[in-house]
């Protein structure tokens, strides 16, 4: 199967500039995303997952710099685009939704105004037509009474409803790619499931590719075709979802899966990975997970392993080094 990918990320590096010091928080990330696929990017806080997502659309805060790499959307390098080219892609071709839906909407503009301006930033349509479309969109994401809700302000919506509005806005122009940065983290668990269901349905209906960023492995399992595990700004393992969840290769992924709490299984203590994640931007010479890894050898803390290909999977661990290879 050789479909040309819709998004290709090559060796993306992002650093924060702090007091004349560069802290590399994303240490070269590469992956490709095909049309209609859902890629989950999983990692703890500080792993670089959100920074990577913001970097794709050049939405990074002022202190952050993209220090290397390429982001190719249909062959076009987004990091080399002009501001206007980028603007035309944002929202229309690649849309994004965020972690805190209530904070992501402007408090002093109505939901309708915010939807309509999105439509009109990319299409030359009248206000009336845009309003009609906005009502359709609100209806589509399951907001009851959309005509009335159009004139309401974000503070009159619950968190879940705000996220539905954000989704409506993201889907307004039928983008090829949706980047969802922890879209359910700020929501109640019951609402989480609803939003996830909605995203999954719409993703299939629109045939969008989705980059789903989460710290929650269970969510990733529920929605993703492929999973990429980030740790310390590095990809630790990338694999099709069913493989990763049944046969995790990297000790870190194994640890993550092991620490999932199951309701049916009562345990005395909660399983956890010992130690703390590395401080972002202060890389160790070896594998960033080595200090917490029960299987670490001396080599692990001295030399950073490359990503080894193993069938359809990639894993960054010396234990998976193919025999006979000379590194």
């Amino acid at each position, binding site marked *: 199967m050789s479909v040309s990918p819709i998004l290709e990320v090559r060796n993306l590096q992002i650093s924060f500039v702090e007091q004349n010091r560069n802290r590399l928080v994303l240490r070269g990330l590469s992956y490709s995303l095909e049309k209609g696929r859902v890629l989950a990017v999983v990692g703890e806080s500080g792993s670089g997952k959100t920074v990577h997502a913001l970097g794709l659309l050049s939405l990074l805060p002022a202190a952050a710099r993209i220090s290397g790499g390429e982001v190719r959307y249909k062959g076009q390098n987004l990091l080399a685009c002009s501001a206007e080219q980028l603007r035309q892609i944002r*929202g*229309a071709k690649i849309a994004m939704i965020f972690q805190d839906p209530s904070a992501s909407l402007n408090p002093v503009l109505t939901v309708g105004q915010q939807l309509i*301006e999105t439509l009109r930033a990319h299409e030359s349509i009248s206000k009336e037509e845009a309003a009609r479309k906005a009502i359709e969109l609100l209806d589509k994401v399951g907001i009851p009474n959309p005509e009335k809700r159009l004139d309401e302000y974000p503070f009159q919506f619950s968190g879940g409803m705000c996220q539905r509005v954000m989704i409506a806005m993201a889907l307004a122009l039928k983008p090829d790619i949706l980047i969802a940065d922890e879209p359910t983290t700020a929501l109640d668990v019951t609402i989480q499931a609803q939003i996830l269901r909605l995203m999954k349905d719409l993703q299939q209906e629109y045939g969008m590719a989705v980059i789903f960023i989460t710290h929650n492995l269970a969510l990733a399992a529920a929605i993703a075709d492929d999973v990429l595990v980030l740790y310390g700004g590095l990809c630790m393992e990338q694999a099709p979802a069913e493989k990763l969840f049944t046969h995790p290769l990297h000790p870190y992924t194994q640890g993550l899966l092991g620490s999932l709490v199951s309701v049916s299984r009562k345990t005395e203590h909660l399983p956890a990975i010992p130690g703390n994640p590395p401080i972002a931007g202060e890389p160790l010479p070896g594998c960033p997970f080595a200090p917490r890894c029960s299987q670490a050898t001396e080599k692990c803390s001295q030399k950073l392993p490359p990503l080894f290909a193993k069938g359809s999977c990639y894993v960054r661990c010396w234990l998976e080094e193919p025999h006979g290879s000379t590194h």
Partner: protein
Amino acid sequence: MLRYIIRRLLLLPLVMVGVTFLLFLLTQRLSPEMRASLYVRDARQMGALEEVISQYGLRDPVLKQYGRWMKNVIKGDLGYSPSANMPVAKAIKEYLPATIQLAVVTMLLVVFFGVWFGASSAVHKDKWQDTLVRLVSVGGFSLPIFVLGLLLLMVFYGKLGWFSPGGYSFQTDLIIHGVSFKTYTGFLLIDSLLNGQFRVFVDVLSHLVLPAVTLCIGSFALMVRVMRSSMLEELNKEYVRSARAKGLYERQVIYKHAGKNAIIPVITLASIQFIRLLGGTVIVETIFDYPGIGRFGVLAAQQLDIAGILGFSLMVAVLFVVGNLLSDILYTAVDPRIRLE
């Protein structure tokens, strides 16, 4: 909303009584003779003082005197101001429009430039535009108003002769006090145009420029700082990021999204400053000899014109309450989350 307005207006009499009663108590520190003396043309005339004192009951208990004054106020009679040589109510009617005119022009300048420069300073943070705006605002903030006023007078009146201080020109006075000049609003800037008297308009405007600029500088400095910091805060918020992610134009992101939120604290500041300008352009009106209410207040205070002082304070109190109410109402227009109840 209506209930809120009514409730706030019901507070008005309380504030009025509070302010004037305190002042009234203070005036009682003066002997009845001193209080009467202003109303007597020749104090050496035998019995003249005593006549005024007994006529106005100046030896009565404080509460009785205050009650009498209040009763007249309710009837619309604020007493006679010897310093202005006319009834207090008439003096306010005569001088207040000029001050309002000055305050409005000043505030328009302050808000317009303050918001503009403050916003662009935030957008270009740490670039030369920002540095320049901050430099000017620190400078303006540290320059006392009387120094600046005198400086402007020296340059633009003394050296260049562009503007004139003091009263309006003789011709202007003739025209505005003439029979054919109709008073529509009491604001000379508007009335002169409505009367088709363009030269009067220019004369009035030229008397307005220096005091307005002087008043501007200090307020402007504060406004720029508030707008700048408010804008910086808003630009870092998540909704700004999502506005960019939607593919909006950068000017939409900055002015429509961040700007509309950033302006909320500016409204508070602007309304406080506006009310202060209405009651207290004392220094500037004195420096430029501008025929406004502040100058009236100073003259009344200097001459111990008690009716004038009380009337002036009463007016300021009313302006404060009404002004604050208006700014509250303005909030609801800008921020939908605010509901007045």
